[in-house]
């Protein structure tokens, strides 16, 4: 099967500032990929480009062979760094919103995941704690049967308990034909669920390696490699 994500020479610049510089990346199906980098390294920019929230300045990008557009949006599920819900919504409304617009939304999976995450359907989205809200956003993103999932810092601001829950959910609920790209700067807690890692620094990809190969090759954990790459 062909790659789910193909980026060729993608550059994104804002005036004189370059957020991504000549990035080429290919992600095959059935992978959990860690997109690792410090804040401002270009992780979010890359994800937003794949989901069509940002337009590349140069280069080409396809999702499952399709250019970014209506068709690709139907295949990509994104958990961005800000909520996908509106403040008037109850959890139930947020679920209905997704169900209304995404044909691949699996309501059974969503209910199951809400239960797993201990989220109450009748709660208002605006009163959820940060951790609970992240769990809800993850539930919404993972309840779709998408081809490509993009999770931007899914364990960023949550306590260790929620973190464990979120990792459980990612491993448990993703399906094998699709791929997940997870951006994070908290490598240690999450590195065991990755197949591959992509290190991104100052808008450039500095390493793309299978995690087990990396451990064999360097005899180091991803976390140690990460620290090394970002040491300067």
């Amino acid at each position, binding site marked *: 099967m062909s790659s789910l994500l193909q980026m060729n020479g993608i550059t994104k610049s804002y005036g004189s500032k370059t957020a991504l510089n000549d990035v080429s990346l290919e992600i095959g199906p*059935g*992978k*959990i990929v860690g997109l690792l980098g410090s804040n401002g390294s270009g992780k979010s920019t890359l994800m937003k480009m794949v989901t069509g929230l940002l337009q590349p300045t140069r280069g080409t990008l396809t999702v499952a062979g399709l250019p970014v557009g209506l068709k690709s949006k139907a295949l990509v599920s994104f958990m961005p760094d800000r909520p996908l819900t509106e403040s008037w919504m109850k959890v139930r409304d947020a679920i209905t919103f997704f169900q209304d617009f995404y044909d691949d939304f699996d309501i059974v999976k969503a209910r199951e995941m809400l239960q797993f995450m201990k989220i109450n359907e009748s709660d208002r989205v605006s009163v959820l704690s940060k951790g609970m809200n992240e769990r809800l956003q993850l539930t919404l993103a993972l309840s779709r049967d998408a081809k490509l999932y993009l999770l931007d810092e899914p364990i960023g601001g949550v306590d260790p308990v929620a973190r*464990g829950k979120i*990792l*459980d959910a990612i*491993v*448990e609920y993703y399906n*094998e034909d699709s791929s997940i790209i997870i951006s994070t700067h908290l490598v*240690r807690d999450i*590195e*065991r*669920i*990755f*197949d591959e890692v992509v290190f991104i620094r100052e808008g450039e990809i500095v390493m793309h390696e299978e*995690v*087990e190969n990396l*451990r*064999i090759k360097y*005899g*180091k*954990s*991803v*976390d*140690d490699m990460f620290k090394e790459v970002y040491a300067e």
Partner: protein
Amino acid sequence: MSIEFDNNMPIYLQIMNYIKRQIVTGTLKPGDKILSVRELAAELQINPNTIQRTFQELEREEIVETRRGLGRYVTSEESKIMEIKKEMAGALLDQFINGMKELGFANQDIVSIVAEAVTQSPELGQERGVNPT
């Protein structure tokens, strides 16, 4: 079930060893069904592909066998299990001998020290399963 992973080493090797140890200690018995990739992945919070790779390696070593449509089972061949035991014992011994040599003991000394330790605590020897059936 719990296992402390060392992120500096390939995870699939660690899970292989973990399952082998379970077989040797009898937690997993010959012919037992083992957890599915997904179940084990969720339980250990490990990438499913890593688990898949673990199982493939275990299958290659004929420690685990797949019965079509039924799942994966621990091999019923006692000889295989013996092999694992020997392999694990070998690894332990290597480690021990190397350690002793680093401490400056000669081969003769090591043998006598071990003999002494085993006779002094016979139940220890049994516990470790030193005398194979």
